[in-house]
């Protein structure tokens, strides 16, 4: 179906984005742009200590302050459900994970800096803030569990008093592999061991979270406007598990959303609070996060401490991988947190390589820090980073070329069942590596290194591969793995009488350009212009139940649902066309928006058929109903497996330790592509976030659990002068075999594939200068690099 086209509006065209016009003219409609008549504002009073017992909250002075509507504390939420966790992991002993409660407002104890203790609703935000300052909190500070290893010691402070310890689960995967893995490592010709930290990050979409809730006293219906990647999921979680609101009484709207990167998947306390308070106060209630609040209330990402061992035989074939990880859950289980270090991490540990024996152990740990959950890539970057770092280290130890070592161990036959329970459908890893060598001009590296050295700089080259599992995923499979949700997607294709189309999708666009790319697919199938088709998303009142956008799943799953619904439309439209032309349905062809009878010159236009569907005067009413609207739910049979090869070249200033990325190249295999321009943009953004993780970003707590990096003054976001132009290519295409579009997903690749090559390049640069540095933890900041150079 795909074609090579730089123009037009169908599949394969780099159609310019229609949504851009409203964003470029200030006419976007983000949640904070929504104001409901009569709304009040809430300010949350948050804990400024990591761990403490709440002995008292004195709100008496605050209640008399100007503009105060009502002040809420944890007591107001007694008997109301806590925030639910959507994934239950079973540990290596067959025990289910520990699952502590997560109240909307803290009850009894505060467990991380930023834990909301009280909420002031007032006529204006300024009045709410003023009143919050008059609340007297009596919180007895307790010793905090911050470092994961220390948190697992028997005498560690307990984050949750009702749990036996801070261990959420001890997961082994695949447990049956363990004996063979241990044996293979014992018998290996060479074992490379690497201990590393995958640094804690904050997703930082540029739009902070916002919630505006309204309650209609005449019909007891609620509306919540919120910054979400999956409004239907929020409706289900909040309605069924927290507030007890039936879904037909609750509408959740996620309008234009200013980036998500995973952190807007989850159901947050502030959403539930505003919805609850709107009824309690009989007024709409609005909350807008400040950036500082975002740092201490948005779910964080990554934060793994890992030891990985790679075993090789005498011919440098990989024989086994064994990895142990401590994964930080933070103080509470965020919505999908338990799945990230397990099913999204352990299943990817084979990478692009045919390693016969793999065992993954993950201990998830509660600490007095902000909850950790999925952030762009979610588990897959953590798997890729450790694997691609240890391979590089092995190559260095063995004195072999790191690219050759990878090529030697590539999986080359598909489908391929890994030892960690997944089956890759397609891929061509040598082809992406060939393409990378070309676009990165690896042949010219030595000359570029000499140029750098002539300037007194060190230059390093780092390469890595990646594989990811996207298009999450078959519902029956994820159910077995502990998911408490289905992971299908829905689409309704509504054809109007005059032929224009609204497509209601359960996917959500928060920067990915669905409003442009999705119509390209439908336009291609119907042979009509994409401008006749609009995408409707982000409103539970307008489309069927949908699961939303994350895990690079929108096109692979949501797009497939849209294809299935459009196929139903075509089938019905052909019946109508056959009737209109008095022909047999089997002879009807649809091309370029015209229905024709094969072998004749008879034809009717798209618009004739759609009009007949709604004005059925001449219509096969005995056979089919009027109207032209179809819905499909698509549940995939497998994950998709995008893959690629990335290269980074850095220059390192030995005087200061400052690393600059000079070149970055990415050769990806995303299967078929709908809009190449949008795909490139997704890769660019992911690479910048990966470079950010590798060189700049670090979310730091001190030993008392104080969050030290809680603003853009202290958390180093990548800026325009921190990154180069990127060379990206996605011409290597092995289409997915099990979805109708043959697409794999591209949203997370850049963030998954880039950190290892950056660090591999930094190590290469250091070694080229005679510095015997085997590993450096991210971020490779100037101070860390400089210190490493001093030995």
């Amino acid at each position, binding site marked *: 179906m795909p074609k090579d086209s730089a123009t037009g509006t169908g599949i394969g065209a780099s159609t310019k984005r229609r949504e851009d016009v409203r964003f470029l003219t200030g006419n976007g409609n983000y949640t904070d742009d929504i104001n409901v008549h009569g709304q009040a504002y809430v300010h949350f009073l948050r804990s400024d200590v990591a761990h403490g017992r709440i002995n008292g909250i004195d709100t008496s002075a605050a209640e008399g302050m100007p503009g105060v509507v009502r002040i809420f504390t944890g007591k107001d939420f007694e008997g109301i459900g806590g925030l639910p966790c959507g994934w239950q992991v079973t540990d290596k002993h067959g025990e289910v994970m520990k699952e502590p409660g997560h109240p909307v407002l803290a009850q009894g104890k505060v467990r991380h800096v930023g834990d909301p203790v009280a909420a002031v609703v007032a006529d204006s935000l300024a009045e709410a803030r003023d009143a919050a300052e008059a609340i007297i909190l009596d919180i007895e500070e307790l010793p905090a569990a911050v470092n994961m290893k220390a948190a697992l010691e028997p005498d560690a402070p307990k984050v949750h008093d009702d749990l036996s310890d801070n261990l959420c689960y001890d997961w082994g995967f695949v447990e049956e592999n363990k004996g063979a893995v241990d044996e293979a490592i014992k018998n290996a010709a060479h074992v490379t061991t690497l201990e590393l930290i995958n640094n804690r990050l904050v997703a930082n979409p540029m739009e*902070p979270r916002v919630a505006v809730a309204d309650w209609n006293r005449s019909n007891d219906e609620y509306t919540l406007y919120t910054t979400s990647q999956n409004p239907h999921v929020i409706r289900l979680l909040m309605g069924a598990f927290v507030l007890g609101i039936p879904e037909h009484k609750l509408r959740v709207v996620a309008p234009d959303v200013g980036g998500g990167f995973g952190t807007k998947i989850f159901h947050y306390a502030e959403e539930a609070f505003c919805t609850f308070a709107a009824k309690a106060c009989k007024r709409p209630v609005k909350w807008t996060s400040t950036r500082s609040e975002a740092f201490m209330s948005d779910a964080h990402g990554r934060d793994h401490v890992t030891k990985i061992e790679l075993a090789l035989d005498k011919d440098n074939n990989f024989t086994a991988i064994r990895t142990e990880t401590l994964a930080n859950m933070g103080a509470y289980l965020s919505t999908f947190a338990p799945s990230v270090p397990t099913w999204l991490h352990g299943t990817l540990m084979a990478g692009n390589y045919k390693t016969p024996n793999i065992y993954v152990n993950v201990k998830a740990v509660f600490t007095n820090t902000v909850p950790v959950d999925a952030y762009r890539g979610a588990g897959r970057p953590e798997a890729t980073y450790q694997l691609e770092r240890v391979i590089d280290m092995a190559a260095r130890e063995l004195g072999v070329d790191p690219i050759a070592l990878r090529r030697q161990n590539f999986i080359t036959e598909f489908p391929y069942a890994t030892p960690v329970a997944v089956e890759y459908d397609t891929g061509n890893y040598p082809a992406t590596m060939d393409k990378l060598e070309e676009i990165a001009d690896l042949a010219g590296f030595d000359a570029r290194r000499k140029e750098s050295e002539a300037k007194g700089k060190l230059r390093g080259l780092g390469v890595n591969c990646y594989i990811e599992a996207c298009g999450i995923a078959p519902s029956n499979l994820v159910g077995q793995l502990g998911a408490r949700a289905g992971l299908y997607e829905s689409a309704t294709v509504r054809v109007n009488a005059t032929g224009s189309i609204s497509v209601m999708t359960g996917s959500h666009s928060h920067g990915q350009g669905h409003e442009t790319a999705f119509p390209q697919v439908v336009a291609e199938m119907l042979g009509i212009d994409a401008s006749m088709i609009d995408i409707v998303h982000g409103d539970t009142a307008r489309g069927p139940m949908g699961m939303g956008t994350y895990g690079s799943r929108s096109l692979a799953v949501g797009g497939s649902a849209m294809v299935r619904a459009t196929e139903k439309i075509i089938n019905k439209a052909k019946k109508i066309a056959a009737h209109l032309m008095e022909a047999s349905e089997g002879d009807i062809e649809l091309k370029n928006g015209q229905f024709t009878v094969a072998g004749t010159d008879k034809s009717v236009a798209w618009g004739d058929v759609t009009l007949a569907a709604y004005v059925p005067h001449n219509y096969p009413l005995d056979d089919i109903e009027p109207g032209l609207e179809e819905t499909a739910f698509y549940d995939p049979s497998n994950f998709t497996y995008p893959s690629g090869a990335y290269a980074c070249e850095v220059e390192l200033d030995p005087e200061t330790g400052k690393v600059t990325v000079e070149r970055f190249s990415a050769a990806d295999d995303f299967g078929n592509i709908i809009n190449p321009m949008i795909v490139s943009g997704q890769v660019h953004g992911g690479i910048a976030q990966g470079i950010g993780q590798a060189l700049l970003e670090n979310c730091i707590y001190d030993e008392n659990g104080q969050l030290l990096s809680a603003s853009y003054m202290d958390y180093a976001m*990548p800026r325009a002068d921190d990154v180069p132009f990127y060379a990206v290519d996605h011409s290597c295409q092995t289409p997915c075999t099990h979805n109708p579009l043959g697409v794999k997903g591209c949203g997370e690749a850049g963030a998954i594939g880039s950190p290892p090559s950056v660090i591999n390049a930094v190590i290469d640069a250091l070694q080229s200068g005679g510095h015997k540095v085997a590993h450096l933890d991210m971020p490779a900041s100037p101070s860390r690099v400089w210190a490493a150079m001093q030995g």
Partner: protein
Amino acid sequence: MAKVAMTVNGKSVSREVEGRTLLVQFLRDDLRLTGTHVGCDTSQCGACVVHVNGEAVKACTMFALEAEGAEVTTIEAMANEDGSLNVVQQAFQDYHGLQCGFCTPGMVMSATSLLKDNPKPTEQEIRDYLEGNICRCTGYHNIIKAIMAASGQDMPSMAAE
């Protein structure tokens, strides 16, 4: 409360505001010009950049009262008179210089200000100038391309994709 009067997008406006009201709050909350965004609280992200008397200013770093008598221009007034995208806006669309769109108004306002002072900036000059505008989506690649294109320059070969 005090009275403040200024010209915003060519229209005279006057409101009673608190002393602590920031210019960005005045634009968003009082005038409902919601194209100007707030992405941080430390004057770092640049989502709130507007033009005050022709200069790019982060509207979160200035009190509304400080803009007394000023000429303020926001993203809502940047399109051509016929409503079509202006040269900078069109280049952002043509080169896919935006994704979620949240930082975009600030980027367009900053880019416009840069090109006024430096009509043919180099890649490095653009990157340096945008140091105060954070984008989390695009990796800046296509923003730089868009601004170079808006200034009538060819892209360097590395930027071809």
